[in-house]
């Protein structure tokens, strides 16, 4: 069984970069702060280049079943680099670049250890890059854990801050429980199907007979496990506290990279593995989506702290992203929404990191557009996109895609719930936007260049997706 090293190149590059950053931090302590950041950026850009090359070529699979064991003829590759993988790897890696740039100012300001920060970030990204390519349940779980474990440490990295430790502990406990639940679900699925490869599970799921209830239980438990990672109601309780306690760049990481990778894993499991049971989990996901967007939006309305507001809004957004998954064939709508959400939400976080100050409230953003027209204008644009109104076309297209998938699937009631929710969402985004444009005077220093580049990258992505959204539409795992 040969390994296609080209197919796994992005993952290997990120992993090697992580180790390199750690080594530099160990042996060159003096100048490590700058070096770690630059090393991380180089690694991420190289990985992006590899992803781009992979996307230009045909889909590649590796770690497949040997020819003589295939039996039914399914290749059953554990790691596939196709268009779907490429799009998600690109999202995750570009978002990683933006997070590194965001952290450049935050690391010295809050005395985070630079070497550890970048090492942990790259390790976590390694998990994310692997998760979006995985095609069997074990690879999924392992890469999900590789993604999550370093994040506990990242959240707790502000060692002198008790709230940071509390946030990390909360996330750790909930995450470990969710992993346990998911593993239990996987064991049930393995028990009834006898395989862990997603493509083989689809053929082996017993739809009737004595094993059917066991199958349903296994599927539901696996989905619940993913529910924690993507923070949909009722598995969301850790998110607001953790976002609030963590450094802002780590909160951005959680709300964009971790969520995007989690959704990629969920789409893979549903679209490739559990689709024959769509009749059972479809309505469940639709209800979860409706509850998630409603609860997220209603609570967000009452938030005055920006990071908490973004946390609740990203719970609501997770509801929109989840909505099409209840429909068979709704995957591409979710992919598009996740891609567009990543760009606009990351942009909002990048401006929040620039304005800085933990626990900042909406009122701290008064007059931002007049004092910093570019950053303020960009934030207004990101928020308009999140609300899904023109001229924020990217967000509007994402919403239309989700509405379309939901209506196609016959969930008219869910579409109406979404319609009401867009109104609630607009309410709090507008509250924030209105403050940006109002008069106010907070004396703000010059904009550091890396933060400016971070905002610029997110803005370029959001604008590009507004003009040519086709880039991220119509993509599903091969």
């Amino acid at each position: 069984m040969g390994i296609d090293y080209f197919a796994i190149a992005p993952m290997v590059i990120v992993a090697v970069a992580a180790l390199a950053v750690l080594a530099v931090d160990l042996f060159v302590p003096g100048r490590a702060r700058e070096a770690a950041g630059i090393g991380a950026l180089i690694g991420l850009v190289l990985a992006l280049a590899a992803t781009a090359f992979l996307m230009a070529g045909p889909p590649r699979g590796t770690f497949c079943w040997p020819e003589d064991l295939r039996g039914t003829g399914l290749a059953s590759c554990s790691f596939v680099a196709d268009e779907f993988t490429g799009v998600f790897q690109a999202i995750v890696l570009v978002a990683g670049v933006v997070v590194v740039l965001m952290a450049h100012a935050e690391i010295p300001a809050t005395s985070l250890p630079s070497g550890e920060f970048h090492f942990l970030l790259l390790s976590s990204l390694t998990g994310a890059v692997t998760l979006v390519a995985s095609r069997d349940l074990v690879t999924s779980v392992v890469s999900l854990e590789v993604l999550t474990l370093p994040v506990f440490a990242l959240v707790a990295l502000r060692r002198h801050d008790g709230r940071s430790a509390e946030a990390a502990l909360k996330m750790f406990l909930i995450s470990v429980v969710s992993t346990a639940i998911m593993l239990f679900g996987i064991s049930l699925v393995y028990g009834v199907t006898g395989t862990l490869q997603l493509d083989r599970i689809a053929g082996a799921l017993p739809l009737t007979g004595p094993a059917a209830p066991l199958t349903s239980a296994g599927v539901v438990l696996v989905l619940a496990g993913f529910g924690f990672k993507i923070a949909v109601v009722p598995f969301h309780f850790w998110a607001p506290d953790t976002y609030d306690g963590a450094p802002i760049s780590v909160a951005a990481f959680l709300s964009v990279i971790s969520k995007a990778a989690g959704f990629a894993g969920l789409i893979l499991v549903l679209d490739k593995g559990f689709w024959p049971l769509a009749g059972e989990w479809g309505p469940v996901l639709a209800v979860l989506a409706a509850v998630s967007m409603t609860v997220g939006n209603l609570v967000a309305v009452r938030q005055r702290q920006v990071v908490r507001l973004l946390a609740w809004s990203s719970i609501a957004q997770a509801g929109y992203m989840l909505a099409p998954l209840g429909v068979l064939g709704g995957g591409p709508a979710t992919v598009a929404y996740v891609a567009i959400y990543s760009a606009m939400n990351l942009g909002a976080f990048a401006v929040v990191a620039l304005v800085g100050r933990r626990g900042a409230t909406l009122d701290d953003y008064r007059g931002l557009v007049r004092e910093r027209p570019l950053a303020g204008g960009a934030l207004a644009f990101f928020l308009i996109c999140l609300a899904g109104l023109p001229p924020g076309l990217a967000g509007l297209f994402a919403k239309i895609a989700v509405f379309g998938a939901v209506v196609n699937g016959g969930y008219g009631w869910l579409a109406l719930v979404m319609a009401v929710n867009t109104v609630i969402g607009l309410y709090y985004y507008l509250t924030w936007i209105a403050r940006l444009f109002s008069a106010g005077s907070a004396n703000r220093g010059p904009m550091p260049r890396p933060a400016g580049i971070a905002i610029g990258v997110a803005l370029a992505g959001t604008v590009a997706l507004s003009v040519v959204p086709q880039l991220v539409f119509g993509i599903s795992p091969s």
Partner: protein
Amino acid sequence: MIVALLAVPLLGCVLVLVLPERRALAAGIVVSGLTLVVAVAMAVVFDYGRADAQLAVDVPWVPALALRFQLGVDGVSLPLVLLTALLSLLCAVYSLRPAARPSRPKPFVALLALLEVGMLGTFVAQDLLLFFVFLELVLLPMYALIAGWGGTNRGAAARMFILYTLLGSGVLLVGLLLVGLHTGTLDMAVLAARHGEGLSRTTQVLAFLAIAGGLAVKTPMWPLHSWLPAAHTEAPTAGSVLLAGVLLKMGTYGLVRIAIPILPDGAAVLAPVLGACGVAGIVYAGLACLAQRDLKRLVAFSSVGHMGFLLLGISTLTPVGINAALFGNIAHGVLTALLFFLVGGVKERYGSTDLRQLGGGLLTTAPRLGSLLVFGAVASLGVPGLAGFWGEMLVMQAAYAPGPGLTRWLYLVYLGIAGAGTVLTAAYLLAMLRRVVYGVRPSPRQFGDLTRHEFAAWTPLVVAALVAGLWPRALLGVTDPTVRMLLVRGG
């Protein structure tokens, strides 16, 4: 050419943002002037004998959503395009006056230009989703105009406007997607030519409920109108003019363009409801106006009544009724725009629009302003020979003979109520005139009569009101071929 119609204001919006602040207002006039030139050029090359969309552009935009950048103009949309371009220019001219010059003119002009893109785009879009995108595009600029340059309660009014109408948009989108799902196309012309073929009766009723319901918020139809009085009252003059003159027309335009031709069975089932809400709106607005103490609020409420007439006309599902509604659209656009301009002028001079504080005697203090107010009010209450007359007269004629499948006695009842409504309209407008224009002025307040800019901004509207009133065929002849094409089944 049709792309230029949208590109000119869009580029203008960007251009204004990079220009220095003091050139912004002049740039606004140039941009809206050029747009009007394009619109007039379109009207010149337009072939008035044809019923289908002309000057068409069709480019795929987002294939995965079946969204096409498909534009075209026909008899129904051409008058509205001209009205929009004209009112935008007049607003730009009006804002140039020293007394009404907005603070922070740069964002003000940029927002007006962006608003114009959305308004024009809505009327020329030939793809259901593109129509929706443009319809949404007007919301934020209008919100920002009200919230940024409005009256004392602007924040709440602006929020109510955008949240309420966004709810309408969401429901509308569901309806549009439902149509797209069951027919496999979003091309308005193709769908209209099918006249509901391939759509079951249930689907049609559901889709009509969603589409008409969403549009009814924008129109606004009683009882979904409650955002309107606040938004109109708090908006700056240019905002009120465009809100009443153009934005309200998008709802009725959408009904005529999308809901009725594409979903004829749904329309037949729900038209009586539409008509009932229409006449309820006429009476409600009449009574509300009689009780109004504020001039601007009175003009705002009167829109609900006029829109009620248009809805009644549309609900007859006859060419006469729909032509009348489209005529009324333009007439209301011209007259209400004029009235809001005049109210803006009154407010500037008195510092208030409260009828009790205004006292009377406008005609002696500022005779030209007073006479224009009389002209606007009289035209609005539907005196023959002026624009307001034909729309309402033809609507009532259509209600006397509603389309096939509709209960005739019901429409006769509507006709009776609408008739009573015209009396109410006359009553409140004349009462308003008596309190503001006539009589002696309570205090020796002195202020100037019409200024140059006011004269320039208002004359075109007066002329338009006269032309439409004296020569209605000029307008009805444009809309009629398209309306017949949209309505006639299997024709």
